[in-house]
């Protein structure tokens, strides 16, 4: 060991079980937020940061698809395919699912575990219903003879709804995880519900956006 190295150790009393970011310690040099007393629960939750970064990456992915889509639809041979009524039903179902998740979060923050469970269960069920509804829409289109290679619009329709469906499936997985977590340890519910809600509202808004650009003329 090198004789000149000096490791200054923090008094054990200030080091919380979560490492260097124990709440309530005084500091002048770290980030401006998240260091005040009691402020660490939201800002220091790495899952939140991770989910936001993932949302950014998925946004870029769909921005790239949008870019390709908008340049294609400017061409003379562009024709919008049929707008199936079930897509409207799916849209309403997905928006209701987001509202149910907010209901769950509101009750969770008031430490009403039963209310949180109810909202979360409803959100999960509605999210799953949306996925099933999308599959129904695909089958209806296929039954009408519209496949991926049928027209430029159908190619983008299947591509965008398919990629959205995959990302939404991940969100449903997150909802099921949150459901399991709320069931097991209701106290930790908020920590899981927050990041899950960020992602779930994102895939919801993403659907509204895709629905709009696919059928807006």
């Amino acid at each position, binding site marked *: 060991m*090198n004789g000149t190295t000096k490791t200054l150790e*923090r008094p054990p009393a200030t*080091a919380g079980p979560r490492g260097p970011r124990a709440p309530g310690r005084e500091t002048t040099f770290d980030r401006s937020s998240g260091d005040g007393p009691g402020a660490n629960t939201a800002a*220091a939750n790495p899952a939140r940061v991770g989910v936001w970064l993932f949302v950014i990456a998925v946004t870029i992915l769909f921005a*790239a698809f949008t870019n390709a889509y908008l340049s294609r639809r400017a061409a003379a041979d562009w024709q919008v395919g049929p707008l199936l009524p079930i897509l409207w039903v799916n849209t309403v179902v997905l928006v209701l699912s987001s509202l149910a998740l907010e209901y769950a979060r509101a009750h969770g923050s008031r430490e009403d575990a039963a209310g949180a469970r109810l909202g979360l269960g409803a959100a999960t069920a509605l999210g799953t219903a949306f996925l099933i509804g999308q599959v129904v829409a695909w089958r209806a289109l296929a039954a009408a003879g519209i496949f991926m290679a049928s027209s430029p619009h159908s*190619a983008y329709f299947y*591509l965008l709804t398919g990629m959205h469906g995959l990302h939404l499936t991940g969100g449903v997985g997150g909802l099921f995880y949150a459901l399991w977590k709320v069931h097991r340890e209701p106290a930790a519910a908020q920590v899981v519900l927050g990041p899950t809600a960020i992602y779930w509202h994102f895939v919801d808004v993403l659907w509204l956006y895709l629905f709009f650009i696919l059928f807006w003329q």
Partner: protein
Amino acid sequence: MAVTHEHAHAEHHLSFVQKYIFSQDHKIIGIQYLMTSMAMAVTGGILAMLIRMQLGWPGTKWGLAAFLFPGGFQGGQMKPDFYLSVVTMHGTIMVFFVLTTALSGGFGNFLIPLQIGSRDMAFPWLNMMSYWLYPPAIVVLLAAFLVSGGAPNSGWTAYVPLSALKEASPGSGLGQTLWLISLALLIVAFLFGSLNYITTILNMRARGLSMGRLPLTIWSLFVTAILMLLSFPVLFAAVIMLLFDRLAGTSFFVPSGIVIGGQLLSHTGGNPLLWQHMFWFLGHPEVYVLILPPMGMVSDILATHARKPIFGYRFMVGAICAIALLSFLVWGHHMYTSGMHPLVGMAFMTTTLAIAVPSAVKTFNWLATLWRSRIRFAPAMLFALGFVSLFVTGGLTGIFLGSPPIDIYMQDTFFVVAHFHFVMASAAIFGVFAGTYHWFPKMFGRMMNERLGRIHFWLTFIGIYATFFPMHFAGIQGMMRRIYSPQLYAHLKGLAELNAFVSLAAFALGLAQLIFLVNLFWSMFRGPRAERNPWEATTLEWQADSPPPHGNWGAHLPEVHRWAYDYSLPDAKDDYVPQTVPTAQVPAHRGTDGGGGG
């Protein structure tokens, strides 16, 4: 303390598989990334030797190579489509499977938690998943050599329609599909990695380690992770769309009216330029994904071995950010010959040449750091100095190629090959070597052999200039990139000696790397034991044991009191003051604290 006990406790119960194979420890994952990248570098290097065999002596019969690659040779001669497969796979492997994985995956994983004073990454499980998507991606990629038609022929850029139509070339069959799937897997791995790096650096820095006190290695890895997060999804989108064009009959990229073998294809209305735009929107940030981490690592290595603070720390950070921002605005300079409007070309030229400014800021700051310093010529330092040389040499030709009037003449010639092999490939690999020599003691707790390291450096440095510098002249004389034989055209016949010389230099360069491999593996098991801080460096990782234990820091996390470059302070006893030394004991370097408020 709960955390420590948990870690110490957990260590006892980790099986061999959990500890070394499916490990969630960032250090093991980093070393896994580095070792796998090295195996891929050997693979990519062998492919490079095959390319040079063909270009040096086209038409020659190669008994041994024909025996080793029976599908690629006919009557002892290399087949043209096999040559193109080799070129494609060499580029793909070196860019994505060696340099990106070694620098971001390897050094990123190993260094980030150690240099910011945390116990591990924010999401260790995701980190493990990131590594374990990499070997499957390799298997899928290399399987392309074994399927009917062989590996893809379309180059690492996979331009449409060659990459979209099965009928286009032998490698455009299943081989191209596997290439796309492999890349998709690797992109997901990179996404997991960059999510982790950004979150870790934002959330888990040691007490006192403000962003303004971070070592430049961390700054560069941080900005690189942001680049990857913002650029790879675009390639992912393009890969998905190209897969649908190939497998589902869509026409995202394939235009109407393509006739192959007398058959009119059914695709209509796609745009092949769309692929180029999407590819290069990733492709250009990608070259900065390869060069920013070496820039950061080299900054730290230069300061350490020159025993001087890095010159212009804030400008270095600013230059990293400026390069990253500009890298998103320059993709069009890869497409000057695609029929682009001259005004658009001029706009891309302006942004491209603007990158020279932050690049020059970095170069002059490196030189100013070295100015009147007492340099310790350790192998890591030699490779860091070599990096600066190669970056400047390659960067200068970038100024030529960034201008449309010159680029339209030089496009797709060996001048371009020479340019990017200096600025991106060689410079980045010098960053990998410098980093390996520098951090090897921390990784394995042993020292590498310095004499072998110096021999390795000089052979590599001379070998690289001998290999790639003459390529400029071949390019100016019009020798095309990816050409199967320079003897096919009358105007290239005079280049036979030059090509033979380049090939011999390349073989010598390849053989010199064996010295590195021997040194690496011998030192890993037989090298002299390393102390904590063999280079007398200031950054946090040198305050941990060599190698650091699981959890890195024992019972207590380090606390930071100064920036990362307190070398040769006038009032200090030693010529370096670690970041953990309180300012009460040794005052910090005035005015250069990076705004840390210490």
